[in-house]
């Protein structure tokens, strides 16, 4: 056994001892989070209009009430079972989502088209060219972007908390950051990992 082997063996031993101490080992459900983020994002920015770019999102089976519960229940309709590992449906988050959709329709879509704003690499919206917006509208640019980002920050945090893992906030933010960019319309700007603006 050479020295290198010994080193790896010790490392493996340390790892296994450490692993034994860790009792909770929950992995972030990346794929489910991406699908959930995609649904959220499409609800906000609307369906893709260009037919050639239209992609049907992978369908998640709609939760169904169990048969037993349906038979027993006659007062309260049955609850939805949770089939996805990440659930982002709640009346509060839905309310924010519709507010974001309205804001997108009213302001942000035009500003994305004009290149005034872009998707930042941390899941937010960032102003990249104020002069692309007329003065009359520019006065609201800052305010609307601030409101949008406050909503987004709240959504990322609350999705993590609602799924029982506040520590997932950063991963949810990263997932959303990627999916906003993936769902960007052609011509919209986004930041790459180095913070440089790119065009979708």
């Amino acid at each position, binding site marked *: 056994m050479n020295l290198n082997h010994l080193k790896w063996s010790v490392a493996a031993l340390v790892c296994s001892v450490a692993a034994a101490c860790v009792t909770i080992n929950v992995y972030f459900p990346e794929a489910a989070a991406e699908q959930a983020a995609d649904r959220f994002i499409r609800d906000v920015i609307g369906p893709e209009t260009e037919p050639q770019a239209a992609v049907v999102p992978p369908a998640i089976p709609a939760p169904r009430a169990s048969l037993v519960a349906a038979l027993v229940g006659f007062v309260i309709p049955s609850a939805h079972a949770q089939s996805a590992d990440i659930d982002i*449906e*709640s009346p509060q988050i839905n*309310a924010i989502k519709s507010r974001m959709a309205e804001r997108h329709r009213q302001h942000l879509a035009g500003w994305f088209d004009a290149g005034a704003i872009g998707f930042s690499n941390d899941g937010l919206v960032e102003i990249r060219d104020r002069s692309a917006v007329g003065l009359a509208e520019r*006065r609201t640019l800052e305010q609307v972007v601030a*409101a949008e980002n406050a909503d987004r920050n709240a959504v990322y945090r609350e999705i993590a908390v609602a799924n029982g893992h506040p520590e997932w906030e950063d991963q949810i933010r990263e997932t959303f950051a990627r999916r906003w960019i993936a769902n960007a319309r052609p011509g919209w700007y986004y930041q790459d990992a180095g913070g440089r603006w790119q065009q979708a």
Partner: protein
Amino acid sequence: MSHRFLTVDRRLPGHAPGLAALAALVAASVAGPVGALQWTLQADAAVAGGLRVERLRVERAADGRVEAAVDGLVVPALGALGRFRLDCAPAALPCREGRLQRIDEAAGVLATANWTRGTEDLPDGGLALARTSDGWGLRVDGLELAAWLAAPQAPVMLQSGRMTGRASIAGGSGQFDLRIDELGFDTADGRYAGAGLRLDVEAEWDGRELEAGLAWRAGEVLLGPAYLPSPPVPVALALSVVPRAAGGRRVLGRLTADGLIAAGLDAGWDAPGALLRPDRASLELEIPSLGALWSLGPESIAAGAGWESLQVQGRLDGRLEWRAGQVGMLDVELAGVGIDDPSGRLSIRDLDGRLQRRDALDRAALSFETLTLYALPFGPASLRLSGTPEALALDEPARIPLLDGALRLDRLRIERGGEGPPGLALDAALEPLSLAELTGRLGWPRFGGQLSGRFPSVRLDRETLEVAGGLDLELFDGSARIENLAIERPFGPLPALAGTLTLDRLDLAPLTAAFDFGAMQGSLSGYVRELRLLDWQPVAFDAWLYTPRDSRRSRRISQRAVDQIASLGGGGAAALSAPLLSLFDDFGYARVGIGCRLAGNVCRMRGLEELDGGGYRIVEGRGLPRLDVVGFRRQVDWPVLLAQLEAATRGDGPRVDD
């Protein structure tokens, strides 16, 4: 080759001498020696106070035409303006008539003005120059600023604007009086912009003193986060600069807008120094109506921070003295301030406040009639604080009435040292207030009792308010405690509240009566842990409510309460058939326990114990007829459960019938 070249190929001396040299060259070209001589003057890279010229050329051709051209003119802020050329008609030296043009290498002539001697009878868009007895006079009439001064990729891009007015220069003195209409500008980064601006600009100097004035009469401006719409009254800035011994100077400034603002500045420099670091300065500020001024900037800044459409009133007066590089004296007074947030988060009535600083000691006083946070009205109250510029502390405990109780601040310390938001240390207590009034305010079913609490520390950072200690409630002959309170984004888009609620032996008889939930006798204990409210609605908790075994109260449950509980458990049937049940008004019970863990909009139910067959026992009966309530549904839609609870407590809930 009959031209004679005189090339100045060294860099002209900088700053004012450079400018003077440039002016001398231009003057020479205009008024220069008359003769048949053909000559060219050329200066490269003249630099004068940020002004740069690549080449200056004056050429007198054999036919007597004089052409003066400036190439590569760069003006600070306005950018590279390119080439300007003045053609003088033949036999017209000094240049009496001619043409001034701005030329772009690619686009050709951008602007042309007739160069006229004499300052009367100008055509539109004209420019006239006159030789006066001791200097020069200039007149412009509707000069298109963008054509003359706009450059692509300039830090400040002029988009529109017409200038009309006069200027005269004689020796070291001069004056100008200009009116600018429809000025539009934008900066490269888009942070600063203006549109439709109507400005009056004037200045007068005599080699020693300078008087200048700027009036903003109309048009909108964007200054970073502040948006200023067209002002309701003209906003005027007057400035005078008086030189002092040893290169020092005194600057007097006054900003006025009738009914909006009046500010005065008196600043002095003992020696030539940085513009923003005077040796001494005093500033006076008077805002007679915060409401009238609010729309001119503050409103847009507040809206950017999430406080849209605030209604503000009151007045502000302030005085500041700056000496030895710091604030020597400060006195700011707020009077009759009112704030109303249309979305109902905050409302303030009749707030008066004063902050004074003398010799690095601060004193602050604050009083208000009411301060309403969401539905909770605080006040009237007055607070006095004192300390240093780094830390302010409450002089004596303050009592802020809240309904029929009060919030008592025993200790309050605000630290402003360093970066980030001010630190806040607080020791507070809630003097008992009646639950009847509080619950009424919050739109809950009214019930009696008392609420009090003690908060030995409160931590506030950008997004989160964390409260150590807790609230004690005395209600329904029992007690309850709320702990681990934390509020995220208290005024933000989705306020979240976390906390823990513990219930200890509430008397079920008045409780069920208050909520109209049938009738039960006995005690109720339990907890709601990991509670999280979003937008003040529960989204997650782990709740367990039960009747403690050692209660001395009698244990009976009414027919209707059985129905309600049974329906919560998914309509799980009682052990007796409904017709038989209905013979009895109420039943004895040994114990009751029902739990719910809410997550993902679904309540996961549990009971006293698991039963064979998949049910869970909610009510364990006692005596005869013995009645057990068994739940079968494990997962209940929270909104449905909520609607059902609401219906139940209104007294028209669903009944078990057949």
